């Protein structure tokens, strides 16, 4: 069964080709069937392959399928090969399954859009690229998928291209991630130079043997790869593109900017974990960046009034948690949080999309209100997603995944109290901003009546994701709460286990209680501020505006990078080398103007010219 692996990628690619070539001629029903159906088949195939992979896990931990050799240059020969292990298995499951639900939702959500087939073509291409990214056996193929998702992200953010603002947002996402990608490309060149191959397992194996812990080579390689991961995963300092990326349709935000693409950085670091383990300083950097990002983005989310931007900042913040987990060496905790986050964040974005489409594309939460009674299914599923994001203790999946990260940020070998404080503060803020969003949108008096009745195609994905946002947490629980470790033992065949330094059961219980109390009190504070004392409009104070703009990062980058470049371009317009060429052009122009005067159109003038010429010629002949 495992040999069918390539078909998982081929199906969405086929769907893309079909829709891209003949999408305009097909009816909407056919387009929807092709767009959703290919992903659906991929998802089914993934589950079949998953079952046969898990049942054979005792003897084959890694399955590699080599299709063909890509090219051959001077002994360097990357191949088109797919590498299936427990890490990539988790990722392809989330990508195809959540991807399928989102496609199903989009089939209804985008039905009135004129670019219906274009939308599904891009979405299918995105799924194919993302699958290539996570299944790639070598870093070059991974980079192909990496750039593929970058391209699709650009195309989908700017999907409604008629509004120039969307185009700007798309370009911003593309350019900012490109900064990270450049670092990553240099990292790939560095690895080729050192090992003459980009095959991931070969690199990891030889790095383990050849490079000592803390060596400069491991430092260089891992920090360059980290650059790529920061760009793609919207972490400090390259996080500015993600909030603007909300210009795309809501399913795009759900699929790309929450569930899958932005976690590519997490995947990259988890995949090349050996390089990061070999350079402890870089791991510390990862943890610190993760903590800072989760706090910064959390504070920004507190002040947003666009419902999708709240979710965007919370995505940045949650990926910050994943980076924190990667940084402290809790590899499987990061991947676990990735999976849970994919479920509840996709749910939240789809729920927000349902609200937005029912209210005629209104994004401002302060113009909504009282939707609890009007849209019950959306409300309850959204509430479950929010509870999971806010890590409501015991009942939600988000609690188990986040609690694990918070615990390891203290107890693991790379952890320290500062990271822990950042993490629990983040958890507290998360609870506040999440329920602020819920309370403003769904409670209070009704300000706008939803007009559209939502069909089952929109509601079913919401319900499935809501169920997953609750039950998927029980496959991995802390040792104090049952100690189920299905997920982490599944990943141990690929990822190293976390090293715990300060383990003590009593402390763990204490920390869990602190986390739980903070989450619940966060929800309570949100209740006090947004249900009891309900503000009718957003605050306009300077501090709020500062956070609203995402800590003014855009302005700072504008001053540091954009303005000087524009200034230099202005100067360059008066380049003195240019003056030389302008002078030649001017001289030619001058000659033209002068000689033009002789062309008078007067016959006798020309005759005079002939005569003078003849006289001159004869004189020269006679006199010489």
């Amino acid at each position, binding site marked *: 069964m495992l040999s069918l692996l390539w078909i998982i990628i081929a199906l969405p690619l086929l769907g893309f080709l079909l829709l891209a070539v003949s999408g305009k001629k097909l009816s909407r029903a056919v387009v929807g069937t092709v767009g959703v159906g290919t992903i659906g088949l991929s998802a089914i195939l993934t589950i079949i392959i998953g079952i046969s992979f898990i049942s054979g896990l005792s003897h084959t931990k890694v399955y590699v399928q080599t299709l063909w050799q890509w090219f051959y240059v001077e002994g360097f020969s990357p191949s088109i090969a797919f590498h299936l292990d427990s890490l990539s298995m988790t990722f392809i499951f989330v990508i195809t399954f959540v991807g399928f639900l989102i496609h199903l939702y989009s089939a209804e959500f985008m039905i009135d859009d004129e670019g219906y087939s274009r939308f599904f073509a891009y979405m299918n291409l995105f799924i194919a690229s993302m699958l290539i990214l996570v299944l790639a056996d070598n870093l070059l193929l991974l980079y192909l998928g990496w750039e593929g998702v970058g391209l699709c992200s650009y195309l989908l953010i700017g999907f409604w291209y008629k509004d120039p603002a969307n185009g700007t947002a798309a370009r911003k996402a593309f350019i900012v991630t490109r900064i990270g990608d450049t670092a990553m490309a240099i990292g790939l060149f560095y690895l080729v130079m050192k090992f003459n191959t980009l095959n991931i397992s070969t690199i990891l194996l030889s790095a383990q043997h050849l490079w000592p812990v803390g060596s400069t080579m491991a430092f260089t390689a891992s920090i360059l790869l980290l650059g790529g991961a920061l760009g793609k995963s919207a972490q400090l300092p390259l996080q500015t593109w993600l909030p603007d990326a909300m210009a795309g349709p809501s399913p795009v935000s759900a699929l790309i900017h929450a569930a899958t693409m932005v976690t590519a950085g997490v995947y990259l670091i988890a995949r090349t974990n050996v390089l990061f383990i070999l350079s402890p300083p870089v791991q510390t950097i990862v943890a610190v960046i993760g903590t800072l990002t989760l706090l910064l983005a959390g504070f920004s989310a507190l002040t947003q009034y666009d419902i999708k931007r709240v979710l965007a900042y919370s995505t940045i913040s949650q990926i910050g948690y994943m980076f924190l987990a990667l940084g402290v060496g809790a590899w499987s905790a990061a991947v676990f949080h990735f999976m849970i986050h994919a479920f509840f964040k996709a749910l939240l974005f789809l729920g927000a999309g349902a609200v937005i489409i029912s209210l005629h594309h209104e994004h401002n939460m302060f113009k909504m209100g009282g939707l609890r009674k009007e849209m019950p299914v959306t409300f309850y599923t959204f509430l479950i997603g929010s509870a999971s994001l806010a890590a409501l203790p015991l009942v939600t999946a988000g609690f188990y995944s986040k609690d694990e990260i918070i615990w390891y940020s203290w107890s693991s070998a790379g952890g320290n109290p500062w990271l822990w404080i950042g993490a629990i503060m983040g958890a507290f803020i998360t609870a506040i901003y999440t329920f602020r969003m819920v309370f403003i949108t769904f409670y209070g008096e009704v300000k706008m009546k939803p007009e559209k009745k939502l069909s089952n195609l929109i509601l079913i994905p919401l319900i499935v994701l809501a169920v997953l946002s609750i039950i998927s947490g029980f496959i991995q629980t802390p040792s104090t709460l049952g100690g189920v470790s299905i997920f982490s033992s599944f990943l141990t065949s690929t990822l190293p286990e976390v090293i715990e330094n300060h383990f003590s059961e009593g402390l763990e219980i204490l920390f869990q209680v602190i986390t739980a109390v903070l989450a619940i009190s966060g929800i309570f504070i949100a209740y006090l501020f947004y249900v009891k004392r309900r503000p009718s409009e957003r605050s306009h104070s300077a501090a709020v505006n500062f956070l609203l703009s995402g800590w003014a990062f855009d302005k700072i980058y504008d001053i540091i990078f954009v303005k000087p470049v524009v200034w230099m371009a202005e100067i360059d317009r008066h380049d003195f080398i240019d003056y030389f060429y302008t002078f030649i052009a001017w001289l030619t122009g001058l000659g033209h103007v002068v000689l033009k005067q002789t062309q008078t159109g*007067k016959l006798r003038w020309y005759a005079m010219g002939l005569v003078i010429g003849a006289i001159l010629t004869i004189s020269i002949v006679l006199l010489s």
Partner: protein
Amino acid sequence: MNNVPIMAGLILTGILFMIGVTGLLIRRNLVFILMSIEIMLNAAGMAFIVAASKWMQPDGQVMFIFILAMAAAEVAVGLALILQIFHKFKTLDADKLNNMKG
């Protein structure tokens, strides 16, 4: 016939040619310009005759027949053009027909 000095013949042709050139330059009417060109052609033809009689060769007179034929053809074409110009522009003033300028 042989007692006309060759120099006199050549000076006459020179004078004729200069009259033609001067006419070409100072006349504005296209018909007169065409006539001036005829005078210049005939001056050239006469130079051939003078040279032929000096060296007792018939070639010069043959050349003159050619020049005559050429001049006749040229006048036919030239006059046809002048007629067309007059139809189109209602004038034969060469200075006014200056549309083709840079």
